[in-house]
Every structure is written in structure tokens, then in C-alpha cells.
């Protein structure tokens, strides 16, 4: 009643905007939005085209399957290029890094979102964000001067000595205990994606409606039980999507990994010994790439990386949509 009156009053008092202006505003906004949107798509398309174009030489030479499954990367003598060692190195380091990072990250996110007092949550959150803000190359330097030597002294050497004495058959699997290698790079990678996974998990947890928590409380759930029965199931889609986006992050992480993985281009890789990933081989070799075929092979690896990144993001988007909760308050 009263709202109707005020509405009609204001209509009388202020002259409405002529329809032409509103129509024009609509059109301008639409044009700008569509132009920007299209130019981003165009940019991505152009990048893909450059990668395909420059990488096509390698694909023609070895065949797509041959290139992807080839285990020899020999730019020096035979000019044979196969990407499998790097695909393998990337997949192993990033999947294991995610596995290492996931549970700690979820735990920290739960503490921030559900347990800690406001100020404590802020401090933890800020610290986690600070880790994320450290430039990759600085993490790499720290890895080279502090972490890798420490790992060599305290972890790799003892294991190596033990194996050398009592289980020599393990030595080839373990590899050289030089400190730079797959394990070192993976642990650093895990450290680097923890903040990312934490932030995404916390966002997912914060989106759980208050009503869900209260419903669990009203059934006599304790704080942890509320998290277990109401919060985590509701947030699972977001948490999973966050994990996959973190995986994408790990796949593309370049600098710190290149500095710590030891950069060995040939199979077989070992647990402690040096290896390589797709980004690390690109960054290490693109400047001194000898000959077109080498450069083209690096471009082809870039294309594979590009495709993996897109696929990972599509999977994350799909999971978010698929596991999005629509029920809970009437459909």
C-alpha cells in the first residue's frame, strides 16, 4: 500500500529518462562487452594457431603419436625429438604435488573458514597469501640454496647409503642423491600450490548457506560434525574444482621447477634423481635451440601444455556445474 504510493509520487516528481537514452546505453554496453569477449577468444585462437603452425614441423617429422610417445630427446646428435619424458615428468610432479598439497590445504581452509577467530583467521589467511605472492624464482633460489642441500644431507644421502648397503637393487629406482630432482621439485611444487588450493577451498566452504549449518546444529551435531555432514558435502563440487584448478597451476609452474628438477632430458627418470617437465624443457632450451626441428619440437610441447591447461580448466568448470547444489531450498 504505502510502497505503491511512494512509487507513484516519485514518478510524478522526477521525469523518467527518455527511452532512447536507455536503449542507447543498452546498445553501447552490449557492443563493448561483445567486443572485449570476442577479442579474448581471438587472442587465444591466435596463440593456438602460432603453436600449431610452428610445431607442425615436429608433428610432420615424427607423427603426432610418435612425437607424444617418443622417449628420446636428442637435440645434439641425432635430432630425434619425443615429448614423453616431459609429459611424464609434468604429470608425475603435478599429480603428486597436488596429492601432497590437497589435505593440508583443505585443513587450513577449514580452520580459516570454520574454526579460527576472526583475527586469527586473518593472520593465517594473510600468511598463506604471502606464500602465494613469493615470486617463483625466489622460491627456486631458496630451493637451490636451502631446501635441496638440506634434502640431500638429511634425506637422500641416508636413504642412498642404506640402499647401497642392504638393497642395491633399489639404487636405479632411487637415482642419484644430488639434491636436484623429481622429489625436490615435487615438494616445492606442492608448497607453491597450497595457498591456491586453500583459497579455492575456503571460497567453496564460505558459499555453504548458513541454513545448512544450522540444520545440522539443530540435529545435535557438534562443530566438527557440522563440517562433516553439512559443510563439506555441500562444498564438495567447489573443493574438487579447486583441486583441479590447482593441478592446472602445478602443470604450468615453470621457474621453480626448472631450477630444482635437475633437467635431465632422457628416460628413465628415478625418484631422487634429475628429470624434466614440459615447462622446464621449454625454458631451458628455447634460447639455444639449434635448428628448426628443435625449435618446432619445443613449440609442439608448448601446444601440448596449452591443450592440457585448457582441458584441465574445462574439467574444473564441468565439475563445478555438475556438482553444483541446486536443491536444499526448493527447486
Amino acid at each position, binding site marked *: 500500500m504505502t510502497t505503491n504510493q511512494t512509487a507513484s509520487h516519485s514518478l510524478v516528481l522526477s521525469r523518467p529518462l527518455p527511452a532512447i537514452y536507455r536503449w542507447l546505453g543498452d546498445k553501447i554496453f552490449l557492443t563493448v562487452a561483445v567486443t572485449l569477449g570476442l577479442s579474448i577468444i581471438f587472442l587465444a585462437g591466435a596463440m593456438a594457431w602460432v603453436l600449431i603452425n610452428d610445431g607442425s614441423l615436429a608433428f610432420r617429422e615424427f607423427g603426432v603419436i610418435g612425437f607424444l610417445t617418443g622417449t628420446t630427446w636428442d637435440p645434439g646428435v641425432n635430432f630425434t625429438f619425443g615429448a614423453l619424458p616431459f609429459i611424464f615428468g609434468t604429470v608425475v610432479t603435478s599429480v603428486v604435488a597436488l596429492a601432497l598439497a590437497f589435505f593440508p590445504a583443505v585443513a587450513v581452509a577449514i580452520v580459516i573458514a570454520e574454526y579460527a577467530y576472526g583475527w586469527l583467521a586473518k593472520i593465517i589467511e594473510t600468511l598463506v597469501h604471502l606464500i602465494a605472492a613469493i615470486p617463483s624464482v625466489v622460491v627456486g633460489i631458496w630451493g637451490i640454496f636451502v631446501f635441496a642441500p638440506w634434502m640431500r644431507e638429511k634425506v637422500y644421502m641416508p636413504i642412498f647409503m642404506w640402499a647401497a648397503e642392504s638393497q642395491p637393487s633399489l639404487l636405479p629406482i632411487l637415482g642419484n642423491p644430488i639434491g636436484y630432482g623429481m622429489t625436490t621439485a615435487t615438494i616445492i611444487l606442492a608448497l607453491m600450490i597450497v595457498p591456491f588450493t586453500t583459497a579455492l577451498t575456503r571460497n567453496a566452504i564460505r558459499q555453504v548457506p548458513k541454513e545448512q549449518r544450522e540444520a545440522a546444529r539443530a540435529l545435535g551435531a557438534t562443530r566438527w560434525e557440522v563440517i562433516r555432514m553439512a559443510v563439506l558435502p555441500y562444498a564438495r563440487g567447489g573443493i574438487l574444482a579447486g583441486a583441479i584448478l590447482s593441478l592446472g597451476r602445478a602443470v604450468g609452474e615453470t621457474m621453480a621447477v626448472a631450477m630444482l628438477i635437475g633437467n635431465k632430458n632422457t628416460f628413465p627418470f628415478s625418484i631422487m634423481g634429475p628429470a624434466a617437465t614440459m615447462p622446464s624443457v621449454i625454458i631451458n632450451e628455447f634460447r639455444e635451440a639449434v635448428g628448426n626441428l628443435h625449435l618446432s619440437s619445443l613449440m609442439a610441447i608448448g601446444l601440448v601444455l596449452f591443450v592440457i591447461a585448457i582441458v584441465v580448466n574445462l574439467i574444473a568448470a564441468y565439475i563445478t556445474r555438475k556438482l553444483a547444489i*541446486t536443491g*536444499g531450498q*526448493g527447486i
Partner: protein
Amino acid sequence: MNINVLFKKKKPKEDKMSPDFQPQEPDLLYREIHMNGSPPIRMEAKNLTVKYGTVTGVKNVSLPVYNEKVTALIGPSGCGKTTFLRALNRMHDLTPNAKVTGEVLLDGNNIYAPRVNPVTIRRKVGMVFQKPTPFPTMSIYDNVVAGLKLVGIRNKAFLNEVCEKALRQAALWDEVKDRLGSPGGSISGGQQQRLSIARALAIEPEVILMDEPTSSLDPLSSSKIEDLINDLKKKYAIVIVTHNMQQAARVSDNTGFFYVGDLVEFGPTDKLFTNPSHKRTEEYLTGKFG
């Protein structure tokens, strides 16, 4: 220093108590007094005040909740009905700035007494919210027995039995008996609300609090829930907040009228609706405000 100091524990009692702590047996004398003559009182608020920081939600409310009766709470928006209701099962413990003073007696024992575990109280005083709140990823079955699983009951036969009974009580059994395994979020809003009621019934509380349980439902679902309330009151004490005067008149035995945080009037529903003692109540009931 105790590590708990660092964590969100506005009400440090919560969760700290041993889970098996039970409030003492109801005071026999207390029970006797109310058995004679007046119907037994299941719950009673005494001088209950709830403040959100400096905002007062309800002030100094005293109100009895009789066993096997429906108590309706009515009043204009923002007058403190929800605030009062949530004080009856200690839901305010979860609101950081809410402060409750006064007493709420459940079977004669103050639920705000220092050594009472709110988790136990919430098992005895169940709650149904305005919006249906099934756990959307759990199956219908798991939703119903969620409260039982919390206390470690795993006996399949027993859970099945309770599930069927609760769903029948909530008049939902026939509609979902063939798809107990589908997610709680996959049924209609009205069904979800009855599911929320079934879930509250499954743990066999003593009192059921309902905050506008039909406000988001269509007339048919609403009337089903009203029938259900009539049915349930044979066993439980029920408190229902409603904006619908006809509904209050239809389902309740006693009605309390709230106005800006005060309980203006409380009495038998017929009397309050036909012959209110306060001018404000009359004005509200005749639609002069609100």
C-alpha cells in the same frame, strides 16, 4: 595457555562437555505441581532477554510451552519471534554477537545452566526452519536418519524402522518410499519441508520448534503440514511461529503475541483471537498494523 583460547569459542561450554552428559531427571515436585490442574509444562521461558550487540531481539519474555499442545507465536515482522524461538534450543550459541539472559526451563532444568551441553539440548528440542533444509547431497534415507547416525546408531534394521516411522509421521512416506536413495535435494519444496520435519522427528525430541514452516509452500503442502502438526501434538510439545493468523487459529491451543521484542499477550488461542485483553493485540488481529 589453553589452545582453545585461540579458536572461535564464543560459548566455551559447547562441545567441550562429555557427550554423554545428560541434564538431571526432571524435578519431581515441579512436575507434580503442573500435573495438578493445569496441563504439564514442558518448557518455560523465564525473563528471557536476547540482545544482538546493542539491538534487543526480545526482552524479558516469560512464556510456558505446554506438553501435547501447540503454542503459536504471532506478531509483526521484526518483533522477535524467531529470536525467541531460537533461544529455546540454544541456537543463539552460534550467533557471535547474540547474548541470552534469563532462563529457559526444559522439564524444570535451566538449559542455560553452566554445565549443560547445548548439543544434548538440541537433540531434545528439535527445530524446523522457514526454508526447507534437507542436506542436498545425502539421500532421502540418510537425511532422515542423519541425527541418529550422529550418535553412532548403525543398526540397519533399527534405522530402517525409524526412517519409515518418521516419514509416515511427516506424511511423506507414500510419496518417497520408492526412491529413498535419491538425493534430498531432488524432491519438491513441500516434500523437502516434510523431509526436514521427518528428520527432526527421527531423533524423537520432546519439543519441536517450527519457524514459519509453511511460508515458502503452496496451499496444499501447507495444509498437509498443518494436518501433520495436529497429529504430532498428540506426542510432542510444539511451538510454531507463523504470519498466517488463520493458521495460528487453526492449529494452536495457545498463542503469544509479540510486539517489538515484548510478549504483549499470551493465552488460549480462542480467547486471544476473539477477546484479546490488550489493545495492541486487537489492532494487530484486525489488521490495523503489521
